[in-house]
């Protein structure tokens, strides 16, 4: 369903990668790995059509995402490096408004349950300013609980989370894959996803791969 052909990434004066190809079907996850600055985040942003590739193309359901536009975006859930959490709003408001902006219907009860699931019970009505780094990340990840869109693009989803939360997120991804969804994610942590097939893709020089294996 998701296919990249001959992608090239140039950042400033450096060519981060060229001739990058992969193909991802429903129920599969792509685990991007590589050292810092190897272009992982850049690749994720290309997959979201935020950054244009220097050359090469990305296809979704056989059509180029650059031309699909909104049709593609309605099937895409992106969780970036930043949490997209408003400090002034409560976790509940954040969750509801992000669903609203994505044109999804999310009942308040479902939102409460989602927040409880990521361990924010009792903090639903506290401004996010007062939450810890990990709690903010949880508030952001609560979006995934009711997320039905087919393609998840997650940038370091496990960062700043404790072991229990990491397991929870992994299980969410697993359920998503089991339902036939796709996921592309970057992480430095070795986390097993309970279901679905995992493909790995290394970015950067080959030495780094050997060294870290």
């Amino acid at each position, binding site marked *: 369903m998701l296919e990249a052909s001959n992608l090239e990434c140039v950042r400033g004066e450096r*060519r*981060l990668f060229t001739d*990058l*190809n992969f193909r991802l079907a429903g129920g599969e996850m*792509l685990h991007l790995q590589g050292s810092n600055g190897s272009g992982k985040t850049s690749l994720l942003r290309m997959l979201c059509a935020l950054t244009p590739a220097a050359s090469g193309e990305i296809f979704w359901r056989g059509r180029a995402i650059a031309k699909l536009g909104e049709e593609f975006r309605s099937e895409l859930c992106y969780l970036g490096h930043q949490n997209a959490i408003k400090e002034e709003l409560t976790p509940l408001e954040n969750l509801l408004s992000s669903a609203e902006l994505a044109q999804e219907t999310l009942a308040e009860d479902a939102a409460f349950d989602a927040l409880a699931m990521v361990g924010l019970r009792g903090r639903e009505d506290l401004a996010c300013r007062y939450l810890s780094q990990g709690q903010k990340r949880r508030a952001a990840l609560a979006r995934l609980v009711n997320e039905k869109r087919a393609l998840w693009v997650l940038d370091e989803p496990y960062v700043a989370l404790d072991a229990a939360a990491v397991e929870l997120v992994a299980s969410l991804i697993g359920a998503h894959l089991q339902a036939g969804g796709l996921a592309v994610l970057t992480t430095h942590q070795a986390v097993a996803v309970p279901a679905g097939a995992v493909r790995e893709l290394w970015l950067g020089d080959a*030495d780094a791969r050997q060294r870290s294996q």
Partner: protein
Amino acid sequence: MHWNSFGEFLAMGDHGLYVWGSLVVMALLLVVEPMLLLRGRRTLVTRLKRQFRAERAELENRRSTPAPQRVSTPHRSQV
């Protein structure tokens, strides 16, 4: 020729200051702009040449002494 004498030409019927003020400033700026450009270009070219020379020297140096190479070339990734 419209003018009878050079002095008359310079005076411009009492408006000499304004007319020549316009012409001189315009001519000056139109000459200064390409000169600045040429200078900027020269500094850029010498800088780039120096850089290329240094890089080539480094490359040859590395070839003559087989040290542990770490040339980070873009890697072909395939899944």
